């Protein structure tokens, strides 16, 4: 650590400058850059050279690099958005084409637009959250959780509309648990693992406690469906646990 007040001040200023980097870059290299600046500063101090010139040069050089990294980051974000938009359009083709062949599937244009934005939003959440972390298990955990959450939300809305049983909306509380848990965990792998386990437990509890009101053959299918969702949430939780044990706290 810097022991002299001037050195500490320069290091604090440099740390403030590093905040202007795009967050993913800053989180990955910010500490190393601050350390390297500190090492350079110490080298100059030990050689009896002035710090002012070093600080001026380093701050200018880093500022240029910050501009470059932000331009690159924005350009990548644009590319990501374009890819997700095209991907969402491709996925939208499934209900769009299916609605032409399935009887009583008469969505208005507005419904397709809303579903498109739902696909796009889910895809962007995955792209932005998953790319923050390098671990494959974290990315896979995010993917499985989003897929299962999306499918659960979708099937709940469809079943509720078809069956006329509004009490089935209780299943959406699983997503509420997920949302609250994700906010509390601040996207940390360990917290997300607990969140996904809590979602699996909540879903299992609702599935057991809430009477389905469906005929036996349908109730069995619904139980299997809930079992699959519980397994997916648990699998996602295990993936986050793996990421947590691998070092992504």
């Amino acid at each position, binding site marked *: 650590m810097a022991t002299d007040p001037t050195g500490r001040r320069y290091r604090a200023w440099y740390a403030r400058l590093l905040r202007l980097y795009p967050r993913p870059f800053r989180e990955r290299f910010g500490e*190393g*850059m601050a*350390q*390297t600046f500190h*090492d350079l500063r110490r080298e100059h101090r030990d050689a009896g050279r002035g710090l002012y010139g070093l600080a001026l*040069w380093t701050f200018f050089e*880093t500022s*240029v*690099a910050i501009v470059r990294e932000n331009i690159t980051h924005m350009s990548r974000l644009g590319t990501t958005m374009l890819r997700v938009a095209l991907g969402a359009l491709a996925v939208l083709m499934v209900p769009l084409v299916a609605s032409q062949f399935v009887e009583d599937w008469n969505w208005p244009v507005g419904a397709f637009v809303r579903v498109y934005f739902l696909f796009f939003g889910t895809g962007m959440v995955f792209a932005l959250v998953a790319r923050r972390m390098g671990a494959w298990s974290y990315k896979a955990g995010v993917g499985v959780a989003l897929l299962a959450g999306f499918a659960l939300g979708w099937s709940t809305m469809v079943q509720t509309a078809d069956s006329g049983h509004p009490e089935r909306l209780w299943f959406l509380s699983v997503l509420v648990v997920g949302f609250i848990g994700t906010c509390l965990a601040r996207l940390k792998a360990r917290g997300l693992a607990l969140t996904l386990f809590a979602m699996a437990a909540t879903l299992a509890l609702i599935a057991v406690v809430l009477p389905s009101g469906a005929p036996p053959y349908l109730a069995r299918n619904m139980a299997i469906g809930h079992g699959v969702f519980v397994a997916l949430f648990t699998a996602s939780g295990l993936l986050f646990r793996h990421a947590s044990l691998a070092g992504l706290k």
Partner: protein
Amino acid sequence: MAKKSATQAPLTPAVLHILLSLSTGERHGYGIMKQVQADAQGKVKMGPGTLYGSIGRMIEAGLVRESDKRVDPEMDDERRIYYELTRAGRAALEAELKRYRGVVAVAEGRFAYGH
């Protein structure tokens, strides 16, 4: 695809110097800087912005990777992230040096005949 092109395309001077500095072993950021300065006999001065920006792109291209975070006994008790060459990084360095040798051979041939 990115890895393949990284070993084939001409490298930027910063990337070449970083690869060269890591060719003899893993180093942390400041260590890379000092090695680059020594390799270039003081003619190349790389700041933290250029260094870590290049390292970020090199990690994405698969040329280098983070190896460890530990204390450098020759410095202080702060833990530093070390970087090392990957196989693709070594191949890229060798390809670039081969390219340089080719350019030098052509240039020497031309000067020898007075062109």
